[in-house]
């Protein structure tokens, strides 16, 4: 379902332009508001819908196979750490869902450079960052060369 933008809600902030993975949300030069310039390259990923502070972006199912009359709306609330969905079927039935999106505060990830500087020995080992501790097993598993043989198994 490609996205479209409501004229009276969009204020032209450009958040959708900034986030769209397909580069199809652009600012219309005449109206100074966002527009989907290439609906047939829309994956309906909802990245723009979720990013829009004005809730100005909605979707209408692809004309090739989606009959009119449906709607799938979403509200993503970063502070609450949830995303809510409201589905409306063509025949009017509705369904609602809420899911968590994150368990920690935004921006709280410890940077890779904040960990203790790894030793030269560690750099030459097979272990990746935080291993073996982060594996939750005592030791990184390894094969020996004699375990691999050419041919049909």
């Amino acid at each position, binding site marked *: 379902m490609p996205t479209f933008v409501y004229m009276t809600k969009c204020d032209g902030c450009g958040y959708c332009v900034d986030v769209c993975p397909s580069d199809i949300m652009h600012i219309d030069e005449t109206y100074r508001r966002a527009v989907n310039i290439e*609906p047939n390259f829309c994956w309906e990923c909802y990245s723009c819908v979720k990013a829009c502070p004005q809730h100005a972006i909605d979707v209408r199912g692809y004309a090739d196979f989606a009959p009119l009359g449906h709607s*799938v709306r979403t509200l993503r609330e970063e502070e609450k750490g949830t995303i809510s969905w409201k589905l409306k079927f063509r025949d009017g039935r509705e369904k609602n869902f809420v899911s968590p999106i994150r368990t920690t505060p935004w921006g709280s990830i410890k940077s890779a450079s904040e*960990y203790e500087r790894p030793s030269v020995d560690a750099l030459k080992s097979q272990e990746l960052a935080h291993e073996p501790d982060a594996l939750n097993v005592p030791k990184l598993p390894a094969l020996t060369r004699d375990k691999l043989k050419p041919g049909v198994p």
Partner: protein
Amino acid sequence: MALFSRRKTHFVDSDILVIGGGMAGCGATYESRYWGRDLKIVCVEKANIERSGAVAQGLYAINCYMGMQWNENQPEDHVRYARNDLMGLVREDLGYDIARHVDSTVHKFEEWGLPIMRDPETGRYQREGKWQIMIHGESYKPIVAEAARKAATEVYNRIMVTHLLMDSKKPNRVAGAVGFNVRTGDFYVFRAKAVIVSAGGASHIFKPRSVGEGMGRTWYAPWSSASAYALPILAGAKMMQMENRIVLTRFKDGYGPVGAYFLHLKTYTQNAYGEEYETRWFDKLRETIGDYVDHHPVPTCLRNHAFLEETKAGRGPIRMVTKEAFQDPHKETVGWENFLGMTIGQAVVWASQNIDPKYINPELTTSEPYVMGSHATCSGAWSSGPSDYAPDEYQWGYNRMMTIDGLFGAGDTIGGTAHKFSSGSFTEGRIAAKAAVNYVLDMGNDRPEVSEAEYEGLKKAVYQPLENYAVGRNEIVGGTVSPSYLLPIHGLQRLEKIMDEYVGGIGAGYTTNEPMLMRGLELLGMLKEDLAHIGAEDLHQLQRTWELKHRVLASESVTHHTLFRTETRWPGYYYRADHPKLDDQDWHCFTLSQYDRATDKWTMEKAPVYHIVD
């Protein structure tokens, strides 16, 4: 002076350049910083890493997790699983390497804030299947992107990388990459000691089922434009298994995933008359592929095969039986949230067609083929393996280094490692990055040199489509038809038609043969010539032009590989009608290709498959 080559050029120097900021690229960026504290790490992405790559809209499961801490699986088990699913042919050294590290990646994701569901009785991660764990992954990509942003010296969003740069003083060594900013139009020359390609695989090389407004609703993201392959191919890196395209059995039109439905909700498929149909096709299959059909679990391609045969026999549509499972409110919620978390479009299709799976068993379909390296398929670059156990033939340098010095890869870029999915791709990025840090430190003060002639030549080529349009547009009154140029969409539609008809797309029933492939190569050759005449109206269309060029090069590779392997190894993915049998005598091996940019020639060879001894 050409019209558009006066664009400003920016030079960006780094120790490690990561191309593509999806799951693999974010993993590479994070790990580069961990081991290379004093290095300059640059990540370049054609969209915005906040929501880029195949995980842009989220995921509802992590499909590659061993659970070693609970002794659920060991890395060897995953190797056997991937080997079985790919009909015997995977790089087991690389697959083992991902499997032994992937748990630490997933544990880090949870620490960072990714909500992973827990089994209320055992307290362990909630399993969807043997390898899959269930997550609330709407923000999977933004969380991972946060870690990458903090690790990178700089992230450059909205820059489409078009070519790699080679060292002018040492042969076969990478020196960086060039690209253009799709917002400002500026030209970028990235000079680096090591380059990690972690770009996307290929959607839209075969004609999709929907060719109207819905053509973007492919299973694999429409922005996965084969840069993962075109960049190394153009530089002369060896590629492997490019014939190993994947076809997905999914819910109709939205391509909503079926994994949770089969594994967790215990739904099952049946034909239009309520019959089980898979096993009826397996006996006959034994005649062409032998006992691979008796393996457990049944390989993905073979289940596709049964679906295709049953449909051809006139007993479609095939449906997923959901009505029983969806009577359980918990399962109903999981069924819907599964889509809302990763394939929202499927929920829209069902809402629009009044399909409530509690009362209606929804239709399934098979997708057009895609070329990628992280799902039940393993096309990609031929790379060096881990130094502690990889056989000599798989080891010529640093881990995940391609056949070009300093050129590393991860995710969909690297071939042979099926079933790595999101967590495995991130993990492979980490593996490649640690090796790249070692490579850079071992280089000392040596630094590749980029010749001005090379990047100036590429700069002219990069903007040529804008000039083609500006000049040609004056010839005509208006509209899209010009005698001088083709638009990017014209080229894309020609490519999709050629691949569909000659290389085994849906229109050809996934079937091809040598004469068809030869004709396909002729037509692809003419399309390649026509690519010099693509007209781009603006910077967005310039991006589409370069995506098209990457797709065409990858398609040519796919066609050569398909021609080379004279057997049908993966019925259900594609069929060589002139070689309908699986042939372990001659083809229990990998296919490798190498492209020579100077002569426009492809060279094919075989490489041995090593198995872990049971």
